């Protein structure tokens, strides 16, 4: 909201420079965004918080200034001389909808419509309001000055001289001042004359009763509209006006007669019109005096500092609160009608705090009563991320929204947004990999990157009973070559086993071992021959695999990519096993290699488990250490080297013992159809 300093000065002396005024208002809660010189004047641009509708006008700001600098507030001039027949002879008003309008005040004016004088036009234009005519300009002027929106009807165009506040009827239409022909409904309030609606209550006037140069008399409406009614109506109509902005935040129910008097004074002063005697008014209830009890001791409890009684009494008095004499149990504080935002003791405390000055409250640190710290799962999440960073992957963060077609890569229902920003962001992601990480990879490849390793730790949203299930996952994508390119040799292209190795490496950091890798082809976006389900016992953790060539093509990944996605929520929450140190082996291990030719289709896991069964208790480990397919190994066969390690805790193994175990292994393998090489 823009305020001219000269206008402000009509109501209060400003004893400081504009910059200082701006800073002081800002600290007191009326943020001044800009201070612009305007000739000899100054324009302040204030960002008034939604609760302070009382400061969305010059006089309200002046009140704050008067408290800030302990200078008197001068009320606006509202005296005027009425003449002619009684207003009530020409106009009657009624409230047909008390839930819309508790107070409807009006006046009748004989007017001579013409241009407004320059000083009014200049002020309006300075704060961004277009000048229309002397009558309309004065109503706008008073709204900006006192905060009460009013509306002038051409009295001759008000059928029967009757105005009533009521809800619009279904099917009713109204052409508003902006030229729009609007369909109304039961949630929109109107000012009407019988069946004819003339204006949108608290939002905008109607074209049919608009003041024009032909207007000789006006009915001036100044009402108090219920905030919620105006808010809903404005929202349903998609409208936002200076009037609705104020009414929906709660205007001052006592302001209507004052605004009418101020308008009467100004119309007279500029020779634009004369009020007819009398206020025409309907009101559903009398003025409600609101008060709240404040315990002065709460100031210290909430603020941590004492505010002298004389100081808080001065502040409240200056802001228009009525403060009774009173003791420590509680002081009755009467709330001014324009402070709809103040309802309880704490609101009064805030008023005192902001004018006493937050800078006067000493800074303290609360005593620690409980030890802080990261929870186990939070530490483990950090450790997991650190191990991935150590493995050369960089972390990314993506939006949680994807398009419907992107989400359809993962079968099953998904959670969608009611009001997405666009179709591309209409669905909550159900995977970190598709499209998120693949898309991130594509963007980096487009920028000329070749070797890319990325990970994200974040939530996916899966359909649930009452609400979507949020599952914390780790997703990774790798593409290009292993290691950084180097002059010393050729790099190796990344493949499935890099993804597998990184998953194992990262989960090992969490103490999660004994993973099972089951060939799986259920995910359509993965290569059917190069994908695995990652499990631990009965628990499916996720998947890893090469991206299906067609999907890779769709993402412009010319050399493909390998990905993995693991649910980590439960893993992070596992308590890490306490480390109990094993005694170091005192006797040496013996290593032996066995080379076999085996069916290419058989899995390494199967052969290893056969070896384990046959070897007996001395075997400490077995692993495939070399693998070869191609001539001279026959088609459909594969040559494998198995590295076996034997050890005994309490003695050195003899050559015979080891040889016996190896013999058992070889016999077992032979019995299963393997050919032992090097025999």
């Amino acid at each position, binding site marked *: 909201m823009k305020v001219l300093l000269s206008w402000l000065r009509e109501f209060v002396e400003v004893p400081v420079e504009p910059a200082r005024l701006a800073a002081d208002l*800002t600290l007191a809660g009326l943020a001044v965004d800009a201070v612009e010189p305007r000739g000899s004047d100054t324009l302040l641009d204030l960002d008034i918080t*939604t609760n302070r509708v009382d400061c969305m006008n010059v006089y309200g700001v002046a009140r704050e200034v008067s408290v800030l600098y302990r200078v008197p507030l001068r009320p606006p001039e509202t005296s005027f001389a009425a003449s002619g027949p009684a207003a009530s002879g020409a106009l009657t008003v009624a409230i047909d909808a008390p839930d819309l309008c508790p107070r409807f005040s009006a006046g009748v004016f004989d007017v001579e419509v013409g241009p407004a004088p320059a000083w009014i036009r200049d002020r309006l234009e300075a704060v961004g309001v277009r000048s229309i005519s002397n009558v309309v300009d004065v109503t706008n002027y008073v709204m900006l000055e006192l905060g009460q929106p009013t509306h002038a009807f051409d009295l001759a165009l008000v059928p029967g001289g009757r105005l009533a506040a009521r809800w619009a009827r279904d099917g009713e239409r109204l052409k508003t001042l902006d030229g729009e022909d609007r369909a109304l409904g039961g949630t929109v309030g109107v000012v009407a004359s019988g069946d004819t609606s003339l204006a949108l209550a608290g939002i905008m006037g109607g074209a049919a009763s608009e003041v024009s140069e032909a207007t000789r008399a006006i009915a001036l409406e100044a009402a108090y509209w219920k905030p919620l009614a105006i808010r809903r109506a404005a929202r349903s109509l998609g409208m936002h006006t200076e009037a609705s902005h104020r009414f929906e935040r709660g205007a001052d129910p006592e302001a209507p007669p004052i605004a009418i008097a101020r308008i009467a004074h100004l119309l007279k002063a500029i020779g634009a019109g004369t009020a007819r005697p009398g206020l025409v008014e309907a009101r559903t209830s009398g003025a409600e005096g609101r008060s709240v009890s404040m315990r002065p001791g709460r100031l210290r409890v909430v603020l*941590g500092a004492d505010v002298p009684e004389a100081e808080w009494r001065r502040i409240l008095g200056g802001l228009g609160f009525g403060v009774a004499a009173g003791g420590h149990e509680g002081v009755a504080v009467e709330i001014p009608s324009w402070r709809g935002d103040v309802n309880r003791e*704490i609101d009064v405390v805030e008023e005192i705090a902001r004018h006493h000055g937050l800078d006067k409250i000493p800074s303290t640190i*609360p005593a620690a009563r*409980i030890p802080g710290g990261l929870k186990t799962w939070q530490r483990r999440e950090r450790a997991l991320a650190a191990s991935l960073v150590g493995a050369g992957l960089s972390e990314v963060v993506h939006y949680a929204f994807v398009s419907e077609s992107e989400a359809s890569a993962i079968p099953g229902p998904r959670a969608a947004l*009611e009001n997405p920003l666009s179709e591309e962001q209409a669905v909550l992601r159900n995977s970190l990999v598709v499209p998120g990480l693949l898309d991130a990879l594509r963007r980096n490849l487009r920028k000329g990157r070749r070797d890319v390793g990325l990970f994200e730790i974040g939530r996916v949203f899966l359909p649930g009973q009452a609400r979507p299930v949020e599952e914390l996952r780790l997703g990774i994508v790798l593409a290009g070559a292993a*290691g*950084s390119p180097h002059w010393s040799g050729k790099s190796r292209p990344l493949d499935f086993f890099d993804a597998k190795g990184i998953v194992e490496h990262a989960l090992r950091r969490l103490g999660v071992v004994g993973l099972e890798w089951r060939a799986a082809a259920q995910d359509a976006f993965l290569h059917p021959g190069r994908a695995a389900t990652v499990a631990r016992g009965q628990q499916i953790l996720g998947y890893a695999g090469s991206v299906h060539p067609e999907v890779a093509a769709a993402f412009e990944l010319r050399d493909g990519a390998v990905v993995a996605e693991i649910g980590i929520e439960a893993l992070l929450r596992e308590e890490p096993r306490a480390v109990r140190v094993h005694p170091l082996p005192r006797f040496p291990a013996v290593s032996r290699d066995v080379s076999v030719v085996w069916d290419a289709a058989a899995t390494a896991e199967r052969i290893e488990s056969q070896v384990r069964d046959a070897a007996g208790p001395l075997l400490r480990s077995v692993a495939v250490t070399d693998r070869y397919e191609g001539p001279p190994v026959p088609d459909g066969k594969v040559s494998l080297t198995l590295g076996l390690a034997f050890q005994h805790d309490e003695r050195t193994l003899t050559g015979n013992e080891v040889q016996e175990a190896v013999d058992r292994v070889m016999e077992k393998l032979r019995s299963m159809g393997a050919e032992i090489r090097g025999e």
Partner: protein
Amino acid sequence: MPQSLDDLKRRVRELRNEFEEAMGGASDAGSLQAVRDRFLGRKAGGLTALLKSLQGLATDARREAGQELNALKTELESQMQRAHERFEESRRARALQRERVDVTLPGRSPAAGRRHPLAQVRMRLEDIFVGMGYEVFDGPEVDDDYHCFEALNMPPDHPARDMQDTFYLKGKRDLLLRTHTSTGQIRYMLANPHPPLVRIICPGKCYRRDEPDLTHSPMFHQIEALVVGPGITLGDLKGTIETFLHALFGPQQPVRFRSSFFPYTEPSVEVDLGCIACGGSGCRVCKGTGWLEIMGSGMVHPAVFEAVNRRLGRVVYDPDEVTGFAFGLGIERVAILLHDVGDIRLFYESDLRFLEQFPG
């Protein structure tokens, strides 16, 4: 054959001269071996021959001559040993020289990843608060109207809801993407209905229906803090916020508190940091004010405690017994200020050229 001691001594002199001449010409292990064969060889060595010739001398002369020859032998051997060591050393040196590399060639770096800058800033913030005795609490990103608005003193149709344009879930109008991590206040207090000593931060993702541009993103990250207990004051709010902003931006950075409005705090306090770009003199970053808005804060509104008590069915957080403060700040905002990031969208675009500028 020497016939006399004198004769022998002459031969020894001649032999020594010959030896020294031969050694002078020996330049490597091979030629050294030839010298050894010539003078000390078992069959044809010059000294060996002289030793054999001792048998022709008288006993006394033989003893003296023997000593002389042995001394000569020791001397020749030790000279050859020294030469041998010299030649070995230079051979090894040459071998090492052949193994030399060009140390200016590029090194072989292990691939190095990066944590996301927002994660790095989040951890920094977490560590500061953990050091001050806070716990880290987390809540769901899909939340409901109650936790996001109603319990935070924003009943339906409250104008303050306009401040946060909300994404709703299709077909479930009560469900939404949380617009702030203040939901954590409600969720923590409801989950901890015991003597109210609360000291938490809640970091997490938030969502608002803003079109992405230089300074807006429909998804962003916040950290909410909540401290509740007997005797918690606005002074505590100020001291805590100053302490943490100084830990983050340096102890010289001015901090200012100004009255503001949030429905769930009263008094509400906006916190400004002296502009880190211009030091407070006014610049483009701070729009000439010398101050940067950094976070919203305030004393927990009694209505929030009352809402929690209503849901708990008993008075646990009695507004007459306990007070509290809360604040929330944007992690992106901090990262942008700390690292001079010109476009908030860079955080979500996964461009390694951006991400790799943040070590660690």
